[in-house]
């Protein structure tokens, strides 16, 4: 039997139910439980965090949750924080745009022009499995400090997932559509515009989703290891000053940003998949 893809817990419960009526109840029950489990899970974690910070650890190693919230509030009213965030965001947007555009272009070339593609693809794969962070020392010693070396690192992070999924997408274009386009005398440019690019988009967007997440990692890596700026600089400063409340607050902001970025990426992907 073929195993189906990902099922939600609500799905599982509704397959157990036989009649429509109990099925509805199953779904409702699981929703209520969802909130309860989430609240209890977060509650226990929060209480543990607060208590261990207050009674067990030294303050320079671990700040209790309440102090992290206070620090978070202070950060959200300070100009330093918002400037740092804006700086990081600008870096992200620059690197992401460059990486995505190059990834799409090279991906389409590799996928469409089979002769060149075979060779280029093997190099792309080799560079893809190399940890991108390892490029930082090379960029540092060739280009030195500044804004653009960091942007290059970010686009390096974004480029590979976009390129590789685009190649897959171009290869998945139905040969029948291509044949029809050809036999109706469509020019190569027209074929690209009307056939290749539309049917590649959903694949490419799954790469863009990964690229969004990786680009975010790239921003922090570049700001940490190249000249420090933005959120990376904040993290570095707080950890050197042993201000754990600020440090935890900044990491919490990173987590929330990461989740937002992932959701945003999934939203982009979903939009393009339905568009197809």
């Amino acid at each position, binding site marked *: 039997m073929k195993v189906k893809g990902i099922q939600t817990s609500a799905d*599982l419960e509704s397959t157990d139910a036989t009649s429509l009526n109990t099925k509805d109840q199953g779904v409702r029950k699981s929703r209520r439980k969802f909130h*309860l489990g989430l609240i209890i899970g977060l509650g226990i974690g929060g209480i543990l965090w607060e208590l261990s910070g207050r009674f067990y650890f030294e303050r320079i190693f671990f700040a209790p949750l309440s102090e992290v919230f206070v620090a978070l509030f202070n950060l959200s009213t300070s100009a330093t924080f918002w400037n740092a965030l804006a700086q990081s965001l600008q870096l992200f947007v620059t690197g992401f745009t460059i990486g995505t555009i190059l990834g799409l272009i090279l991906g389409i070339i590799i996928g469409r*022009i089979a002769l060149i593609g075979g060779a280029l693809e093997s190099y792309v794969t080799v560079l893809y499995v190399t*940890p991108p962070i390892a490029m930082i020392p*090379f960029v540092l010693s060739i280009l030195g400090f500044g804004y653009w070396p960091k942007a290059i690192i970010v686009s390096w992070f974004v480029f590979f997932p976009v390129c590789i999924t685009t190649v897959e997408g171009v290869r998945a274009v139905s*040969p029948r559509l291509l*044949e029809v386009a*050809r036999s109706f005398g469509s020019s190569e440019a027209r*074929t690209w515009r009307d056939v290749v690019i539309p049917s590649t988009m959903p694949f490419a967007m799954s790469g863009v989703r990964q690229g969004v997440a990786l680009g975010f990692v790239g921003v922090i890596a570049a700001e940490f290891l190249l000249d420090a700026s933005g959120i990376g600089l904040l*993290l570095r400063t707080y950890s050197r000053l042993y201000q754990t409340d600020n440090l935890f607050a900044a990491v919490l902001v990173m987590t929330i940003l990461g989740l937002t970025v992932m959701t945003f990426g999934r939203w982009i992907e979903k939009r393009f998949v339905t568009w197809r």
Partner: protein
Amino acid sequence: MAVAIVDEKTKNRSGNPAGGVYRWKNSIAWLVTTLTILIVWQLAVNFFGRDYMATPVGIINALPDVLLNDPKLWPGVWETFAVVLRGLIVSVVVGTVLGLMMGRVSFLADALAPYVNGFYATPMIAVLPIITLWLGFNTSATFALVIFAAVPPMAVASWDGSRSIPTRYLEVAESFGARRRDVWIGIAIPASLPYLLAGFRLASGRALSAVVIAEFLIGTGNGLGIHVMRLAQNLKHNEAIVALSILTLAGLFLAIGVERIIRRRYPWFRKS
């Protein structure tokens, strides 16, 4: 022209005798493209670059020297991969158990999901300052970062896997009076295996990244990552690339190896 090539390729897959010609043409194209890349690279650095930058010829010259005569290389390789291996073993066990529990007990899934997703979404570099604060600037911090990087993808994969168990199997097991332990060993784990493999692929990639990040930022120790960093900073780019290629080979080996196992043993398994 491109269309013709694509057609030829599809024919090749369906067993057309033209396949041999295609393969021959393809390897010539591969060779030509590779040579072009290498020559352009070499000439570009010779004419526009600096002396210390890596070139194909320089890398080939450095290859035997680094692999045979560098006293720091192989101890570094050992140190780095020992940490990765230990971290991956711990992560696979912890992540799998966590994910299976989340898949089977929906209450636990709801309670733990924010943590698994949150840790997954947090860039590893951001937590490294906290880890070094707690554990100091040493190998145990590297080890902890590897675990931080590799547990979430394993947990998510085995969570997905255990949710994908066909309910029919569970019902049959239940009606034949299977014990909880038998359900786990007989159904839950085998059904999640391809998911676990896909998760392991992600986890091993992240573990390699994590070890490099940790070595770069911790700055002590003699691992392969910091060795690459030091060579690059001392403007020995050729040597640095040779050392780095060992990391690349490891990544390639893990990614392609796992991919091949999944394709061969679980051809029905497709995960975006």
